[in-house]
C-alpha cells in the first residue's frame, strides 16, 4: 500500500518539476480568444453603419464570460474618433443596441431567435459557428490550416444597410 503511494508521489513530483521548464514553449503565442477579439475589432474598423457619425461610441458585444478578458483588451481602442466600448450581453434583445455582436460556438441555440430579431437591423453579426453565413449571419470566422480565415455574406449586410470596406472583402475566403 505504502509502496503504491510513494510511486504516485514520485509521479506527481516529476510532473510538477518538469512542467515549469517546458511551459515556456507554448506560452508566448496569443491565444485564440484574443485573436478573435482582434478580428472583431478589425471588422468593426472597416465597417460602415448608417448614422454612425452620430454614435458616441462603437459598441462591440459578446455573449459568454469566456470572452470577457479578450474583449476587455479593446477598451482603450478607438475607431477613427469614436471610442470602442465592449459589453457582455445576456439576451437577444440587447443586441439591438450593439454595432457588432460576436456569437461564439457555445451560443448556437440562440441563432434562430437572433436572426428573427435582427432581421434588417444594422447590426454586424460575427461568429465562429460553422455554417453561420449560410444560415443568415454576416461574417463567419473559420479555421484553415490552423489559421483564422473568414467568410462574408454581403447580401445579408446590404439588406441591413451595412457596408464593408473592399480591403476586408478581398481577404475573405468566400463572399456571397
Amino acid at each position, binding site marked *: 500500500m505504502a509502496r503504491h503511494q510513494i510511486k504516485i508521489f514520485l509521479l506527481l513530483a516529476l510532473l510538477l518539476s*518538469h*512542467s515549469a521548464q517546458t511551459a515556456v514553449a507554448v506560452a508566448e503565442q496569443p491565444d485564440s480568444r484574443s485573436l478573435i477579439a482582434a478580428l472583431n475589432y478589425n471588422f468593426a474598423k*472597416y465597417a460602415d453603419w448608417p448614422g454612425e457619425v452620430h454614435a458616441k461610441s462603437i459598441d462591440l458585444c459578446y455573449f459568454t464570460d469566456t470572452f470577457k478578458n479578450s474583449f476587455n483588451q479593446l477598451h482603450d481602442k478607438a475607431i477613427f474618433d469614436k471610442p470602442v466600448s465592449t459589453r457582455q450581453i445576456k439576451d437577444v434583445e440587447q443586441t439591438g443596441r450593439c454595432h457588432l455582436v460576436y456569437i461564439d460556438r457555445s451560443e448556437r441555440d440562440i441563432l434562430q431567435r437572433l*436572426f428573427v430579431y435582427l432581421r434588417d437591423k444594422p447590426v454586424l453579426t460575427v461568429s465562429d459557428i460553422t455554417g453561420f453565413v449560410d444560415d443568415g449571419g454576416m461574417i463567419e470566422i473559420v479555421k484553415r490550416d490552423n489559421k483564422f480565415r473568414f467568410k462574408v455574406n454581403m447580401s445579408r449586410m446590404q439588406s441591413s444597410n451595412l457596408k464593408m470596406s473592399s480591403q476586408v472583402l478581398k481577404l475573405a475566403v468566400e463572399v456571397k
Partner: protein
Amino acid sequence: MQKTGMVGLWTLGCLLSCCTAVRADSAPSTSPLDLSLQELLEIEVTSVSRQSESLSSAAAAIYVITGEEIRQRGFQSIPQALRDVPGLHVVQIDSQKWAVSSRGFNGRYNNKMLVLIDGRSVYSPEFSGVYWEVQDTLMADIDRIEVIRGPGAAIWGANAVNGVINIMTRHSADTLGGYAELGAGDYQQAFAGFRYGGRLAPGLTGRAYIKAFKRDDLEFNPADVSPAAAALINESGTDNHWWKQQMGGRLDISLGTASTLTLSGAAYDSMMDQSVTVPTLTAPYIEYPNINSESRGWHVLGDYSRALSADSQLNLKAYFDHAKRDESFFGFSRDTVDLELSHHLEFGQRHELLWGFGYRHINNELDTNQSVIDTQGEDESTNLWSLFVQDQITLKPDTLWLTLATRFEHHSYTDSEWQPTVRLSWQPWERHHFWTALSRAVRTPSQAENEYLINVGNLAPMTAFNPTAFVNRLILEGNSDYDSESVKSIEAGYRYASGHQFSLDTAVFYNDYDDLRSNRIADTDFSTLPAYLTTRSAFDNDSSGHNYGLELSANWLLNESLKLRLNYTYIESDFSDGQPQNTDAPEQLVSLMTSWRIHRDLEMTASWRYVDRSQSIDPVQVDNQSVDAYHGVDLGLNWQLTSKLRLSAFARNLFYGSHVEYKAELFSIPYRVEPSFFGRLTLEY
C-alpha cells in the same frame, strides 16, 4: 503487478527526460490588437487558452466533461468518461457491465439516475436503470457530457432522483470531413471507427459513422466467492468477452433563418458472453451457466426548433427507440415512442419561462420462456403523460435569481405525481457564486416491481434458513400497488473562479428518502409439495432513510501547459434497513487529474483515483458482500505526428493489481478489473 508498475514508471521517466530536451521556438510576444487584419490571418492559432472556463451560474451541482477531455484521456466508452466526475461512483462489473450512480444507491440496476443521449432517455423500464453496455456513439462525436447531481425531475422528468447524465453529440457542421480511428490492446483487443461528415447543401450538413470493437474477458478469481460456488463457476466457464458494432448518423437542416431541424439515428448489435446465477431444484440448488447473449436496437430522433421572436422559441422533439435483449434468464423486446413540445419564452425584463408537455408510450414484451423471470402482468404497455413549467425570475439583475419549477406526471403504474423545485442563485461579486435548492423527485416503479415474478434463489432443505425437508423456492413478486419512491432534497453550493488560474466548485446536500423499496414476506405456498415449497415475498414501500455529503472540484491552471484538477466526494448514509437498496455508497472518492502539454505536438494526461470500501446486498444471503477500497492510475499520451495523424497510448488501472470493483446485487458473479493498455491511431482529414 509489481512488474507492470515498474515498467509504467520507467516509461514515464524516459518520457519526462526526453521531453525536457524538446523546446519549441517561441514567437515574440505582440498584442494581436496591434496587428492588421492581414497579419492576424497569418498567426498560427494555438488551442491553449489563458483563461479557465467561465463560472457557471447554474443553481445546481453540475460538472461537464468536454469532448476534448474524452479525446485526450482516451475514453472509449461513456462509463469510462464518467469515472472521475465528483459525486459519481462508477464501477465495472464485468467486461461489459457498469454501474454508475451519484449520491448512493449504486447498482447494476441503479434506478435513480436519468440518462439522456441528445434528449433521448436510455433509462430502461424493466428493472429501472441503464444498460450501459449498449449506450454508445462514436466517442469523437461527443460534444460534452453534463452531469447534474441531485434531483433534476422538475425539468428532466421522473427518475432523475439523484442525478441526470446528459450526453450531447456535436452539431454536424462541427464534424465536417473524415475521421478514422484504429486501436488495439489487451482488454480493448481491437477497435475501429470511421466517420464522414459533409455539407450537402447550404444550410444542410450531415455525418455518418460506423464503429466496432472487441473487448476481452475480465478475470474471475475463485477467492472472491465461496469455495463451493467457485468450483461450480469454474466448471461452467467464466467467459465475459464481447463485441459490438454500431452505425449511425445525423443531419442538421437550417429551414430559413428562423427554424432548424435535426434528424439522427443509430443501430447496434452486440454479442456478450456472461455468467449468470440460476436457481435449480436439485442439489446444489444453484448453477452458473456461462451463456452467450445478444442485444440489439435502433432509434431515430427528430428535433425541430422555431424562433417566434427574439424572446420566444418553440421546440418539438420526437423519437422512436427499439431495444431487444436475449439473456438466458431474461429477455425482452421493447418499443418506445416519445414526444415532447416545449416553449421557451422571456417576458418583461425579469421572467424566463420554459413550459411544455410530453407523452411516452412503451410497449414491452417479456420473453417468458426464461426460467428465472416470469410476469403476472397482462398489459405490456405503459403511458406517461407530463406537463412541466419553469420560471427563472431575475430578482436583481446580474446578482440574484429565483427559479420555480414543477413537473406534473401521470404514469400507468402510479397516481399523479408533483415534482417541484425552488432554486436560488446569488452572485454578490463577480467571482463568487452561491446557490441553494429545495426539491422533490420520484422514481416510478419498474416493470419488475409492478408485475414480474423473480426466482431470486432456492434454499437447500435441512439448513439454517430452511429446516424443512423440501427445497424452498424464493419468489419475489411484483406488486401492482407498489408506489413511487420519493426524495426531498436540500442542496447548497459555492463556486469561485479567479480570473485565470484557479476555480473551485463545491456542493453539500441532504436527501430524505421515503417509500423506498423493501420486501415483505407474504406467504408460504405448500401446493407445490412434494416437489418444493414456495416462499413468496412482495415488493413494498416500507423503507426510508437519509444521506448527506459534500462534493468538491478544484481546478488549477499552473501555467499555460499544465492543468491540475482535484475531485473529492464524501457521503454518509443512514437507512432503516441498515443500508439503501443495492449498494452502500463508498464514504470517500478522490480523483487527482493532470493534463500536461509537453510540447505543441505532445501531451500527457495522468489521473489517480481512490474509491473507498463499499457494500452491496446479496439477495439470498443474509450477510452483505463487501468490496475493499482500491485505487489506480490512468495514463495517456497523445502525439500529433502530422496535422492529420495522431498516435496515442493509454494505460488504465495501474499500480493496484487486479481487484473487484463491485459485486452485483443479482444475477452476476464478481470479476476483477486489472491494469490494461492500448494504443490508438487517429486520422482526421
